[in-house]
């Protein structure tokens, strides 16, 4: 309830300065106008290469280890890498006319057809991601109602449906709780030559109490 009031307040505040709103919106969302997206899309390429390299290394070391737990972890990290890549590719998808229309990424599209948003006015806006369900933080109305409307065909899809953990560029994962954090401002700690970033001081404290439990295996 409080959150709703807060949101309403923000809406009213922003209404007073529409130009600021427009600027903010442009900054937040990949505007579907061509030029800017092309530039962003080009910037993204080295990032994606890094992600792919990291995931490949992880897979290779898992294969060498021949250990089921490692392999599962590698698959998980591959999965999140793919999600990363998809997020990164968003500007490219907006720049070029969507070449993936009609393709679905299994796992990432839980009950897209059920989402009431699909037929809503918002979805009819020229959104290149329509049907792709980007795991972007706030405007996820299409992805939200998973719980409320489990897909009709498979009653179990609801429980099993993959839950995308949001990822975005240049962010680090808190080793305690998996929250995405901005390394520039997050509390951090070094352990065995690696730097860890935390979503809160409490989280950092918890890590320092038993770092061995939470330390990750080398990723890159």
């Amino acid at each position, binding site marked *: *309830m409080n*959150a*709703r009031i807060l*949101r*309403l307040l*923000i*809406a009213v505040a*922003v*209404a007073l300065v*529409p130009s600021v*709103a*427009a600027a*903010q*919106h442009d900054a937040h969302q990949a505007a579907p106008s061509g030029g800017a997206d092309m530039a962003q899309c080009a910037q993204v390429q080295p990032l994606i290469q890094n992600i792919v390299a990291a995931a490949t290394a992880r897979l290779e070391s898992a294969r060498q280890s021949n250990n089921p*737990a490692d392999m*599962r*972890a590698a698959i*998980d*990290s591959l999965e*999140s890498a793919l999600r990363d890549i998809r997020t990164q590719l968003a500007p490219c998808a907006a720049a070029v006319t969507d070449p993936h229309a009609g393709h679905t990424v299994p796992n990432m599209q839980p009950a897209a057809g059920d989402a*009431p*948003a699909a037929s*809503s*006015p*918002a979805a009819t806006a020229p959104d290149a991601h329509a049907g792709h369900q980007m795991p972007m*933080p*706030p*405007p*996820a*109305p299409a992805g*939200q*109602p*998973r*719980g*409320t409307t489990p897909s009709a065909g498979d009653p*179990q899809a*609801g*429980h*099993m*449906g993959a*839950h*995308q*953990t949001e990822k975005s560029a240049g962010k680090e*994962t*808190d*080793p*305690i*709780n*998996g*929250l995405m954090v901005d390394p520039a401002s997050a509390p951090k700690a070094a352990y065995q030559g690696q730097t860890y970033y935390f*979503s*809160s001081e*409490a*989280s950092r404290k*918890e890590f320092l109490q038993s770092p061995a*439990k*939470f330390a*990750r295996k080398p990723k890159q």
Partner: protein
Amino acid sequence: MKAVLKAFGLLVALLLVAGGIGLWYFVNTGVSAKARPGRLEEFIARRVRNMAISRHAASLTNPVEYSGNVIAEGRAHFADHCATCHANSGSGDTDIGRGLWPKAPDMRLSQTQNLTDGELFWIIENGVRFTGMPAWSTGNKEGEEASWHLVHFIRRLPMMTAEELEDMESLNPRSPAEIRQQMEEEQFLKGGGDQPSAPSTTPHTHGGRK
């Protein structure tokens, strides 16, 4: 012999009277789920439930290794499927959790935290009979793994930070009305569309999740 028959008859009569009084009580007061189960009943029910969990299951250890990502998965899953009754914090302080009989437990407390990983897993997969806890088993490996993620997450409940709770709020299921309102607000923030409509004029009072 006659004495025995007499005693037996008396006993039956007593039982009938007690039953009658009980029936009269229930008919007049109704059997409400609002009450809290008595301590004796709670004690017996917990015992019975613990007995119902197979020993083999109780001794299982979590095959999924702890990691931030596992917690994130478990947290997202919990926010989507469990928080409606158990609350994001695991307190059970929700409209449904409070109204169940027995109430949804505060999962941060020892009653839940003292259960073994295997017991938690078993309860998620099989539910608890005669309570609001359903069986979530899907009968496949992915489902089991999701349940093990949840077990890791349940262990974290007592230490949850404000940031994690905030993250969960964005993942809680929403009603179509809430989604519509959010979209209107976003549309409005983008500078287009009408002013977001006020929350439904006929608010239904059962909503809300803490």
